[in-house]
């Protein structure tokens, strides 16, 4: 069964091989294990890009294969980040607090420790008690469960409500965007229990590994991200192939006809929506320890739209397209905004790419939609067919 699935999808093997080579190459060139040709911060950038690729292929499955243009998948990504961030922040603060309290003659009671941690974490928003949502923050396994459960449950409930009442097409997009906006506005509040617009910070310090250098930590996370991307790719390639994949694509092309054929369309959509949300959550949980900080601005509706932009530029309906689009746009974006691109002097006006990059992105996005609906992946397909 498994062999035949891979055999039917040679692109999976190609992708895995390429990812493996890429990971090895980065490892050999990184500071921690190799020549130091690549800086630690660039390893982190690459690791983060891999996580973004993971959420992008999830987006591709839900949009490119199932036809649901969700503008909420980056919210699930952010929820995953918040869930892991809560543990990272709690555990790290606990270490600091326990250390500072160790000097006291009378050992602190558990209540005193917990109060001290709470006032450390929530001092910035003027609170000193743990809100109920932090009930599991002390435990890594439980919080890891939250990474999966919270986005999964939210997607399940939201999807069930939306699909049940047959909200489709652009209405569903607007609805998911509203959900994302509601979530980010909620997180912006100081009394949301997640430090308002300060967000969670210091996430790059992994509790228990304080003495490990960041170059090593970044390498571990890079590998974890690569592994997650590989597993996610295989999972999604399996989901979209075979009979289920055919039904999912059929729903994209003509939902009503699939319903008339006797398939329970809502269940398929709900499955895809929830599964991709869970994967997005996992991707977020891997991304934010590398980014070091998460705040509500990350979850703003615009982020989810960018996600759609990556997938569209890469080419919908092909998993490697999503990866291609993400890598291309994020790297181009950091090249242009990071001052890598040379300014163009027009004589009367100098185009500085830090100012004009978004204009270029927006316009090229229009161009891709109009002239190359298949995206970059379409180019790859053309080349593959010729050879």
């Amino acid at each position, binding site marked *: 069964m498994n062999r035949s699935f891979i055999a039917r999808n040679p692109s999976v093997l190609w992708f895995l091989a390429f990812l493996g080579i890429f990971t090895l190459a980065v490892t050999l060139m990184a500071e921690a294990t190799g020549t130091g040709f690549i800086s630690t911060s660039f390893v982190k950038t690459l690791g983060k890009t891999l996580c973004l690729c993971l959420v992008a292929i999830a987006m591709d499955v839900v949009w490119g294969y199932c036809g649901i*243009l969700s503008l909420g998948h980056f919210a699930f990504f952010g929820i995953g980040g918040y869930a892991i961030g809560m543990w990272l922040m709690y555990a790290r603060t606990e270490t600091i607090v326990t250390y500072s309290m160790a000097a*006291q003659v*009378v*050992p602190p009671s558990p209540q*005193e420790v917990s109060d001290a941690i709470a006032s450390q974490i929530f001092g910035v928003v003027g609170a000193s008690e743990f809100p109920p949502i932090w009930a599991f923050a002390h435990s890594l396994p439980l919080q890891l469960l939250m990474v999966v459960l919270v986005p999964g449950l939210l997607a399940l409930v939201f999807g069930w409500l939306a699909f049940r009442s047959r909200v489709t097409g652009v209405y569903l997009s607007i609805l998911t965007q509203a*959900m994302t906006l509601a979530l980010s506005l909620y997180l912006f509040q100081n009394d949301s229990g997640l430090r308002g617009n300060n967000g969670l910070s210091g996430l790059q310090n992994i509790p228990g590994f304080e003495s490990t250098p960041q170059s090593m930590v970044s390498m571990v996370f890079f590998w974890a991200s690569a592994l997650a991307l590989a597993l996610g790719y295989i999972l999604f390639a399996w989901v979209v192939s075979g009979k289920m994949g055919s039904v999912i694509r059929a729903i994209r092309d003509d939902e009503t006809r699939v319903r008339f054929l006797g398939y329970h369309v809502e269940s398929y959509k709900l499955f895809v929506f929830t599964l991709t949300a869970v994967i997005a959550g996992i991707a977020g949980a891997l991304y934010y320890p590398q980014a070091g900080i998460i705040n509500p601005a990350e979850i703003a509706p615009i982020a989810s739209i960018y996600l759609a932009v990556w997938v569209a530029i890469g080419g919908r309906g092909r998993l490697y397209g999503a990866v291609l689009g993400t890598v291309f746009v994020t790297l181009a974006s950091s090249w242009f905004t990071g001052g890598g691109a040379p300014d163009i002097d027009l004589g009367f006006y100098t185009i500085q790419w830090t100012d004009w990059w978004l*204009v270029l992105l927006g316009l090229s996005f229009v161009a891709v939609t109009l002239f190359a609906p298949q995206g970059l992946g379409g180019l790859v397909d053309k080349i593959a067919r010729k050879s």
Partner: protein
Amino acid sequence: MLRALLAVLLIAWLPAPGFTQDLQSLLQEHQAEVAKPSRRTVAPVLEALSASGLPEVPRFLERWQDKAVYVREEDGLFFYVEETGDTLTLLDLSSGDPVTSGVDPDTLDQVKPNGGVRRAIAEALVQFQLSDPDITKRRDAVDAIARGLDPSQIPPLSASIDGEADAALKTRKQRLLNYLVARFGDTPEARIEAIEALSSDLSVDARAVLSQILATRTEIAEDIPDGANVARVLEPGTDLPEAEAYAMIGEQTDLPALVDASSIRTTLERHVEDGKVGGIAVGQLGTPDRRLRAYDTLAEAGTLPPRATPEIIAETLAAWTIYEAYEEPDSAITDAAERTQDAVQTRVGMSQAGDLALDAISLASIYFLAAIGLAITFGVMGVINMAHGEFIMMGAYTGYVVQLFIPDYTLSLIVALPLAFAVTFAAGVAMERLVIRWLYNRPLETLLATFGVSIALQQLAKNIFGTQARPLTSPEWLDGALVFNDVIAISYIRIAIFVLALLFLALLLFILKRTRLGLEVRAVTQNPRMAASMGINPDRIKMMTFGLGSGIAGIAGVAIGLYAKVTSEMGADYIVQSFMTVVVGGVGNVWGTLAGAFMIGTLQKGIEWFNPSNTLAAQTYMILFIILFIQFRPKGIVALKGRAAGD
């Protein structure tokens, strides 16, 4: 009253009072007190001056207060002075005419009253200012009284009311007198009457007067004394924490100390012996239970004072009563004030509800304005235009640019409105021709392509106008607010936006229902092929409709820019709400958009009312509500039926 009597006595006692005496001689009688005034001795002087009835007294008091009075050293006479080069010219106090010129400054002493004296002078001045011929002086005096209510101001204020010519100021004086009487009146009857008169007064001042009359202090007693005017009895545990109540009682009598979690640790740390406290190893003191046991062991041994056990705390709290007593001893007065306060609060509550309704309507009209262009492009044509918000922004920036060239705000507004329409109409037509018409059967891709336009336009605006907010100033006649009472008020800009929204509704309904263009638009949106076979050019109609929707967004931008700041992100702030307004209202129907805007506006203000400090929370809950609402009415409030529904 007493002071007035005193003043009369004083005058009677003085030799040769009345009109024969001039200011200088009056002052000479109090020479020392005027030249070197102090807070204690100045009162009789002021009484005498006030009682003299001389017209020049107010001016003298003002100058005295401003340290502009000088005394001649040789004979102790008082003068005003005028500087002429290095020397001074002395002016007569009564006439203001020069008396002597070329006087050496060294022969004069400036009279310098200290702060306390100046305040006393100011108080005495109030009565003159209250009946000053200059209305601004009278207003200032009334303001001065209102700033700090004081019993001494009752007689001069009441005396000045009858002669007050200005009706508005007279009402204010009467109100102020009422406040004063309510707080400091002589008889309880007068005070109660004044208090009851406050029940129709919703102003903050009146409410402050009531709450000052009802000011309380917390007291503790084993039995409440007979004379106490008790506001309420506090129940420890519900009204205030038990520990706090116990500590308050502890201040009055000797009680075992309350040992709480934070203090017990430091106490124990001071009594560590051989790594043990009270027989318990230090390392084991990590739980509250063991800490208390260690403390009790030490207490039994006599090293520490005994602590308050829960039993002792309960007993103590049962034996004592904690209550709030009014500062005002007369219960009849506080009862009247309570009744009045209840009445006022009911009226304030009703007015607040009214104010909230006005706020909701005005927010609804802003949402309506932002969404009405979308109601055409999205609602009627079915085109998702994510750049709609940026058209709003373009309109607002157009208004800003027009103001740069035309400084007259009214004129610039008249120019800006059609110009904004023209600019965004052109932008809309261009976008329809270049982008949207290729994507009519691919709605999701329209969404993404227009989003691309949106980020490009946003960044473009940032590059041109910078990131800081630009002002769009409204003309003067739109400043200010329509005030119904002290609680209900609405600014003229909001009224203007409301009127504009109504105008647009009418205009749009007229265009869609009564004109050839509207007929063709409806025909094309229902069935483009059939419409084309009837000789309508669908391409042209779609272009025009899209232009119209975009143009209206531009005008909405000017209106929104007047009341909020113009930034490159202002469109993005409204886009999600606008789409929701259209979806909630029901696609394809202008009335639906109105209903949607009204619902969202009311809802948001309604939620804000429960939690006024938190608009973010209000928006969050509103969006959640809308998501749920769409579950139950997926087609919106005003759902199209039959073929027009389109699916």
